[in-house]
């Protein structure tokens, strides 16, 4: 081994190859059609389940295969190479839907809900955001009232990834009074009477991912679907955010990486004023900056991931990593389109999609501003 700490070893490299092969065989040839159609076929879940990709990072007892954080990172990076963050987000919605079940659920709940999702037979999603409460999670309005062994749920969830097709929704609802202490998490099954779903929402990017609004109209949810205790929801949601933010940082870094790779290729092929674009110092320097930022951001994310993997509290650092990665991918996708000139504005070029897909990353999983709120709280309070 080299004389410094590497994050990836042989197992990671093998996982990478498996996912790369999966992407080449099952996704890449069809991905442009899926983007235009606004979803990928349901059977992709089962195929990814079969190949063991969905189960990465989950306990074997529920059909997963535990590996460290970097196994998950390697898999996400390779999945992003399909060129559609929407496919990665859609296949990946279980990674925000399942962890709260794992963290707060009973043995019975875990073995009921998790295995079919890891096999790709059922789709899991997470429902926190509402039409009137996004960043302000403590202010959600969806109500769950306990009655005869059931919760009667009324309200609505907005912008839910995989929402149009999810079978299981890990859902935040108010069981108590105002504020964060009144929030609980329930697993809602889509075939529950009173549960309905909007058309797929039309959006700027992530076209291959179905995003929907979900409505609860006197939805009768068995009380045994409550995760943990009443009032534990807010805590569960906040814990879950750390891993989601890590995943989003990795997605942002990969978006920037792909933008860089595409631009490097294009700058060497395209000629203007009788030389390749790479012959202009201004282009070369732009690419040098891009490469530098991507490298720095990726290393920062890896470092934070390594600490998270070791069980250290990284709430501040992962917020920083997400913001930094998103700033880098904003810049990289902008510059990549610029280097591509008019072609960069055309659908046939990957950078056009990267530019659109990138925009959500600094909004979802906690906005840029909310990350800064978290970071500033830490830096003002930590005098120790």
């Amino acid at each position, binding site marked *: 081994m080299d004389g410094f700490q590497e994050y990836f070893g*042989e*197992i990671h*490299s*093998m*996982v990478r*190859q*498996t996912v790369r*092969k*999966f992407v080449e065989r099952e996704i890449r040839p069809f991905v442009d059609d899926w983007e235009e159609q606004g979803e990928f076929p349901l059977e992709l879940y089962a195929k990814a389940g*079969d*190949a*063991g*990709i969905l*189960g*990465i990072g989950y306990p*074997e007892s529920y059909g997963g*295969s535990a*590996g460290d954080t970097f*196994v998950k990172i390697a898999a996400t990076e390779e999945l992003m190479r399909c060129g559609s963050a929407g496919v990665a987000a859609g296949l990946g919605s279980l990674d925000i839907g399942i962890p709260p079940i794992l963290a707060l659920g009973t043995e019975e709940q875990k073995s009921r809900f998790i295995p079919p999702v890891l096999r790709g037979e059922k789709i899991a999603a997470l429902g926190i955001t509402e039409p009137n409460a996004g960043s302000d999670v403590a202010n959600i309005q969806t109500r769950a009232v306990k009655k005869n062994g059931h919760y009667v749920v009324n309200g609505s969830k907005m912008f839910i990834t995989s929402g149009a097709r999810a079978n299981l929704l890990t859902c935040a609802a108010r069981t108590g009074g105002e504020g964060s202490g009144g929030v609980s998490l329930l697993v809602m099954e889509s075939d529950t009477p009173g549960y309905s779903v909007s058309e797929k929402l039309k959006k700027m990017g992530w076209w291959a991912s179905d995003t929907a609004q979900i409505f609860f109209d006197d939805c009768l949810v068995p009380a045994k679907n409550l995760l943990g205790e009443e009032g534990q929801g807010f805590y569960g949601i906040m814990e879950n955010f750390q891993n989601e933010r890590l995943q989003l940082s990795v997605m942002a870094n990969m978006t920037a990486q792909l933008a860089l790779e595409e631009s490097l290729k294009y700058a060497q092929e395209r000629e203007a004023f009788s030389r390749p674009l790479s012959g202009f110092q201004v282009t070369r320097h732009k690419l040098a900056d891009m490469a530098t930022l991507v490298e720095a951001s990726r290393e920062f994310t890896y470092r934070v991931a390594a600490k998270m993997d070791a069980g250290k509290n990284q709430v501040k650092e992962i917020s920083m990593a997400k913001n930094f990665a998103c700033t880098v991918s904003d810049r990289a996708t902008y510059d990549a389109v610029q280097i591509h000139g008019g072609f960069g504005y055309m659908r046939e070029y990957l950078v056009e999609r990267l530019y659109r897909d990138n925009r959500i990353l600094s909004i979802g999983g906690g906005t840029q501003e909310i990350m800064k709120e978290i970071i500033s709280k830490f830096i003002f309070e930590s005098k120790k």
Partner: protein
Amino acid sequence: MNIIVCLKQVPDTESQIKIGPDGKSIVTDDIKWVMNPYDEFGVEEALRLKEKHGGEVTVVGLGPKRVTESIRTALAMGADKGILVSDEALDGSDSLANAKAIAAAVKDLDYDLIFTGQRGVDDDLGLVGATIAELLGIPQFSIIVKVEVAEDGKSVKVERPIEGEALIIESNLPALITAQKGLNEPRYASLPGIMKAKKKPLEEKTLADLGLDSAEFGEGARKLKILELTPPPERAAGKIVEGETPQEKAAELAKLLHDEAKVL
């Protein structure tokens, strides 16, 4: 039935190949190494036969340490054990020498079938399979797209495509088969498989372990010498055939094919 699969590690076909300063080898610094795709077909076929007939699958790889990763990939797919033939003296060996070392590594194993790829996607020579079979004195079937082993596990029927037809051959076992694209769709090495592979036996053998004389291997012993590597010629610009009518264009095309391309 026991099956041996020979496995070579080659540059990922997506790698950018650059010729080294010596003009005879490629630059390997930035290369991603993967299992030769034709060997994946061999591994998959061996696993399917094992699932049907029972027995064990052993993968044998030859090369530097990094080849263990490809062997482990085959173990992760479901093979039972691995052998890595690795020795500094093997550096620079040609196909004949490599085949000799592999044959020595497998000759005392109990096997019914051996799979190799029909060729390596790196040098495209296709010599190793035939040479191993020759050295072991067993029949060899190359470029095979279908394999059926008899119920009693004593004979095999294989299919080889030939110019739009299929050649069906039957043979007793043991035999060696070189795998061609179309034989099957290889499975993925899943993470659970990858975790299990860590615990499967992987033996490493040097030339001395195999009772071989290192003087017969390496650059100095090559029978096949590489004089020079050159990149493929740049593709010339296409030509648009001029003419007012289809007849005129056809006549012009015929003339070009005759005078310039010299194919008519």
